[in-house]
C-alpha cells in the first residue's frame, strides 16, 4: 500500500464519520422537534457522566459556602453579605481582638462610645450626658478606650472623638446586644 492509498483510505473513513455524524444530528433534530426543542446532540455516556460529576461538585461547593455564609439567629436565617470566597482562611490577631473586647466589656464604656457616635465631646459634656458615672471613673474609662484606639483625644482642644475602629466596635457590640436580647443567653 502506497502512501497515497493510505491518505485516500483515511479521507474515506473521515467522510464516513462525517456522514454518520450528520445522520446522528438529523435524528437528534427529529427527536428534538418531537419534544419541542430546536437542537439536540447526543453527548454520549462518558461525557454525560463527567458533566454530572462536575455539576455535583459545583453543587457541593455552593452548599459548603452557603453553610459558611448563613447565620442562624433567634429570628431565623440571615445571609451574611460579602465575598464568600474571601472568608475561607481567616487569620486574626486574637490578642488584639481580646484587647478590644476587654475595652468593650463595661457598660459605662459602651455608653461613652454611644455618646461619641454623635460627634466629638469634651469631658464635661460626657459628664452631663452620663451623670451616673463619676468624674474619676469617666477619666479611667476614657483612658482605657484611648489606649485601645477606640477613641482619640485632641491635645489642643481636649475633645474626645470616636475612631474608625471605635465605630466598628460599637456597631458590633450593638449587634451582639440585639442577639443576646433575642436569644436565651444570660
Amino acid at each position: 500500500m502506497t502512501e497515497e492509498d493510505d491518505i485516500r483510505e483515511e479521507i474515506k473513513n473521515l467522510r464516513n464519520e462525517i456522514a454518520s455524524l450528520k445522520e446522528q444530528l438529523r435524528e437528534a433534530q427529529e427527536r428534538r422537534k418531537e419534544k419541542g426543542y430546536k437542537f439536540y446532540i447526543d453527548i454520549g455516556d462518558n461525557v454525560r457522566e463527567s458533566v454530572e460529576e462536575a455539576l455535583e461538585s459545583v453543587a457541593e461547593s455552593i452548599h459548603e459556602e452557603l453553610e459558611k455564609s448563613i447565620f442562624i439567629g433567634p429570628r431565623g436565617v440571615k445571609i451574611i453579605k460579602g465575598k464568600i470566597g474571601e472568608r475561607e482562611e481567616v487569620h486574626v490577631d486574637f490578642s488584639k481582638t481580646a484587647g478590644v473586647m476587654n475595652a468593650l466589656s463595661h457598660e459605662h464604656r459602651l455608653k461613652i462610645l454611644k455618646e461619641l457616635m454623635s460627634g466629638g465631646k469634651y469631658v464635661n459634656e460626657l459628664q452631663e450626658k452620663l451623670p451616673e458615672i463619676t468624674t474619676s471613673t469617666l477619666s479611667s474609662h476614657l483612658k482605657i478606650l484611648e489606649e485601645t484606639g477606640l477613641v482619640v483625644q485632641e491635645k489642643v482642644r481636649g475633645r474626645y472623638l470616636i475612631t474608625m475602629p471605635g465605630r466598628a466596635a460599637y456597631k458590633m457590640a450593638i449587634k451582639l446586644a440585639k442577639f443576646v436580647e433575642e436569644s436565651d443567653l444570660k
Partner: protein
Amino acid sequence: MICHNYHLDNTLRKVKEAATLWKTEKGILEISEDTLAVLIKVNDRKIGCVFHGDGKLILDMIVETDKGAIGKPIEKEIKKPFIMIGNIERILPNLVTANRQDLADKGYMDERELIERSGDLCRRFFGESTRVYGCGKFEQGFVFAFLSDNDSDLDMLIAKNLKIVYKTREITFISNENKIVLKTPWKTVLSNNGRSIVLNE
C-alpha cells in the same frame, strides 16, 4: 517678585519668659525660657529667628469623618535649633541680651559656634544662596522649619490663621477649617465637612 539678601544678626539674644509662638485650635508651638534666639534679617528688617533651646510642638493631625476619626495628635519635644519666619514683632519684646553662660547652658562654646549653627540651618532652609525671593510680607503667617529626628530633612509647618500645612518625609497634613487632607504611608484621607474618602496605600 523682589530679590533680597538675608543675614543673621550677631547680637546674642535669649527668650526672657516661656512663650507660645503659635496657637490655633489644631496646634501649639511653645518655647521655654532662656531659649537662645538669632534674628534673621532681610535688608535690616527682622523677618524671622533661629531658636536654640527647648520647645514643644503639638499638632492634632486628626480627621473627623462620617466613619470615625482618623489620625492622631503628635506631641514633639524640640531639642534642636529651628527656624521661625513671620510674625517676629510679637516675640521681640520677650527677647533680652544673652551672655556666654547662656550659650554654655545650651551647649555652645561661643557666639561664633551659635551663629555658624544658625547659618547651617538657614542654608538648608533658604538654599546655598543668601538671596530670598518674596514680596516682603511676612506678617500674615508663619513658617517653621524643624530638623527631623535623624537630621536628614527639614519638617515644615506653615500656618496662616486656620490654614495649616505640616509636611515631613512621611506625613502630609493640610487643614483649612473643615477641609482636611492627611497622607501617611498607610492611608490618605480627604475630608470635607465630615464627608470623606479614605484611600488605603
